[in-house]
Structures are given as C-alpha cells and as structure tokens.
C-alpha cells in the first residue's frame, strides 16, 4: 500500500469506501467560513480525512474568550489571524492536502467570487447576517451548504440546497425566511457548552464526507436538533424541494466601529456620546458609563440630543451593531458607531 493511502486505510476499510472514495475526497474543494466553535472541529476532521482542498475564511483574530471551545487555538496565538493559524496547524496535521487561507470578511461584494473555487460550503459562522449571506450565495451558485448553529445546550445541523433530480432541496430561508437578530442572543450573551460545538462541528464534517463520498443519507430536506443536556435528538422533515425564490444577495450593511483603545481615548477627549444597549442585569453587573437603553427599548427611548457621534456598546458588539443599523435609518446624516467586540474586547484589550 502507498504511504499516503496507509493514512486512510481505516476509513477505506469501511463498507462502501475504497481507493475511489478516497480519490473523491482528495479531489473535493470545501470552503469553511468561520473558524469558531464549529469551524475548528469540522476543519480538523476534514483535514484528517483527506479532503484535498480546504479553504478557511475568517477575518477575526484569536481572543481569550474563544479558547474554551475553539480547540485549534492556544493562548500564545491570541491576537493572531484565525485563518492563518488554522491553516498552518491543519497543514501540519495533513501535509497531503492543500490549505487556502482567506483573511477577509465574507460580504455580498466578494462571496460569489469566493464560492467559484469550491464545490461545497461549510457554515461555521456565528451570526445571522453571515448565515443568510452564505445561504443566498450558495442558492445562487447552485452549491450545497452544510449548515450548523448552536446556542447554550442545543444545536442544529442541515444540508441546504442539494441538487436532486433536477431540483434543489430546501434552504435556510425555507425554514426561517428572515430573523430579527437582536431578539436572539448569541453565544457570548447566552453561553454555549464547548462539547456541543465539538459535536455539531463533527456532524457538519460528517455530512460533508457523506456528500462527497456519496455514502449514507445526507441531511437534505431535514434538520437535525441535538440537546446536549439530555442527548435526545430529533430529525425534522422540511420537505423535498425548496419553495423559496432567491434571485439576488442582500447588500451587506456596513456598520462603523471603534476599537476599545480608540473609544477610551475618544471618551477622555469627550469626543463621543456613549449608550449601553445591554439588559438591566448586565448593566448592574458592570459598565463603562454612558446612558443605559436596552436594545428592545431603543426605538422609543433613544432621542438624539447631541452633535457628537454616538457610540453604542453591548457585551459582544452584536446588539450595538444592530442598534447602529436601526438608528442609521432614523438619522441618516448623523454618525452612529458600534464598539467593536463589545465589553469583551474592552476587557481583553485594555
């Protein structure tokens, strides 16, 4: 046996697997968007199993709050670009595959070009804007999307937009046509159990391998729900064919941000107004000043009384970005800014 096949002998021994199956994996080109709690384990297993070309897209840097679930990273790498660190480690794990880092924020302006180089996309993102963007782009490009999402102890897995007998299986918008992101807490706010991220990421990699090797039943037209507290899971049938019609991408909204360091200097120089959009409980635990208006009350309670730019902050930068988007519509000619990375980044970087 050739040395490169010896590595894969324990998977080539599987029923339905052989050298031809390994060739399918070697020739496959998979794009992983986001190397967070889902992307890390998914990338490890796809690299291990010999997926020939793995693209890793992430514009973010490693932060200390990532380390409880993002197992590719160590404290030494805090501040480094995740995509670069991940590619370097995965390359060492399997020198026989090609790793392609994409250090960029995937937006409506670049996603279609990015997808051209890949056969399939794995969604390792952590926000709704990115999930809808990937979904719509995969539908427009006619490529399958292996979706995963987690919150606290619960996870979801599905494979969207699989071509079957000339039509496409359902996509994310068949299940969730649109979402008000500000109403659904993310992992920073609601927490997440690290082992769930590992399970769901491995399940996504598993769907990728099944799809590429044409073995097993891919979760197309279905959504798997997993509960890590009870280990009960269920598969919801969505249907055979999509009922949505997606013809263009929503434009990615640019939210102006300020770094913790810039904000600190700006506050000292009295350049900014400051608004905390977190909940009362969060406010009471800790704050960096400013007016307190929970995001849900922003529409009624926020009144512009200053000429200065207004900086909004929350725990992670997510609710404050949402606040900026809403107030930009109300005050199109005024400067609304979000604290990048929220109080988490403030505490880590200052």
């Amino acid at each position, binding site marked *: 046996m050739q040395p490169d096949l010896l590595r894969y002998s324990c998977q080539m021994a599987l029923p339905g697997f052989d050298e031809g199956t390994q060739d399918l994996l070697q020739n496959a080109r998979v794009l992983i968007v986001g190397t967070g709690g889902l992307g890390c384990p998914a990338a490890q297993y796809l690299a291990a199993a010999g997926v020939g070309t793995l693209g890793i897209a992430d514009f973010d840097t490693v932060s200390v709050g990532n380390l409880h679930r993002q197992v590719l990273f160590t404290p030494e790498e805090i501040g480094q670009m995740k995509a670069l660190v991940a590619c370097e480690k995965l390359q060492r794990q399997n020198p026989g595959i090609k790793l392609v880092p994409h250090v960029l924020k995937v937006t409506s302006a670049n996603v279609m070009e990015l997808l051209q180089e890949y056969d399939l996309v794995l969604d390792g993102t952590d926000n709704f804007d990115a999930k809808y963007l990937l979904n719509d782009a995969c539908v427009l490009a006619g490529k399958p999307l292996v979706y995963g999402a*987690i919150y606290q102890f*619960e996870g979801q897995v599905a494979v969207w937009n699989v071509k079957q007998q000339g039509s496409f299986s359902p996509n994310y918008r068949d299940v969730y046509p649109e*979402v008000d992101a500000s*109403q*659904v807490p*993310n*992992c920073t706010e609601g927490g997440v159990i690290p082992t769930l991220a590992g399970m769901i990421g491995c399940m996504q990699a598993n769907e990728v391998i099944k799809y590429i090797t044409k073995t097993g039943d891919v979760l197309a037209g279905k959504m798997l729900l997993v509960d890590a507290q009870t280990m009960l899971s269920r598969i*919801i*049938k969505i249907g055979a064919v999509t009922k949505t019609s997606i013809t263009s991408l929503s434009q990615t909204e640019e939210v102006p941000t300020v770094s913790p360091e810039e904000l600190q200097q700006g506050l000292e120089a009295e350049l900014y107004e400051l608004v905390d959009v977190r909940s009362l409980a969060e406010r009471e635990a800790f704050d960096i000043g400013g007016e307190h208006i929970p995001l849900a009350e922003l529409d009624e309670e926020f009144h512009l009384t200053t000429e200065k730019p207004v900086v909004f902050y929350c725990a992670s930068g997510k609710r404050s970005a949402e606040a900026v988007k809403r107030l930009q519509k109300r005050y199109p000619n005024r400067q609304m800014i979000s604290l990048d990375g929220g109080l988490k980044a403030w505490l880590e970087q200052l």
Partner: protein
Amino acid sequence: MKINVLAFGIAKDIFGGAATDVELAEKATVTELRTSLEAQYPRLKQLASYMVAVNNEYATADAVLQQRDEVAIIPPVSGG
C-alpha cells in the same frame, strides 16, 4: 382543544419553561396556533420567524392540528 407545545432554543426563555399549553378551537391551523402563542408571548413575534414542527415535520401555515399532535416551536439559532 388543549395543545402542548414543546420549546426549543430561545423559546424556552420566552415560555419560561420547556413546554407551554395553548387552548385552540377544534381543527385550528398552524396560523391560529401562531396567533395565539404570539398574543400570549409577544417576544415570539419579534423573532420575525420561527419553525413550527408537528410530529417532527415542518408545518405549513394552513396545516390543521389534532389534539394528539406533538407540536414543537423551533426558533432560529445563530451561534458558532
């Protein structure tokens, strides 16, 4: 008829527990279930969309509910 509705994700917070009961007319549709739940729990409507699954199957707006159906509310999840 009284329908027991299971909660997933943020719906557990909204219902204040893993399940809630809803009183509906016989042969009520999924739309009527949504309307009733949203009246009781306004935050549910604010999500903009959430899946209703009946007996582990995605339920369309006009699907008719039976007393013994297992109904689940599955909101979107964004973490990663």
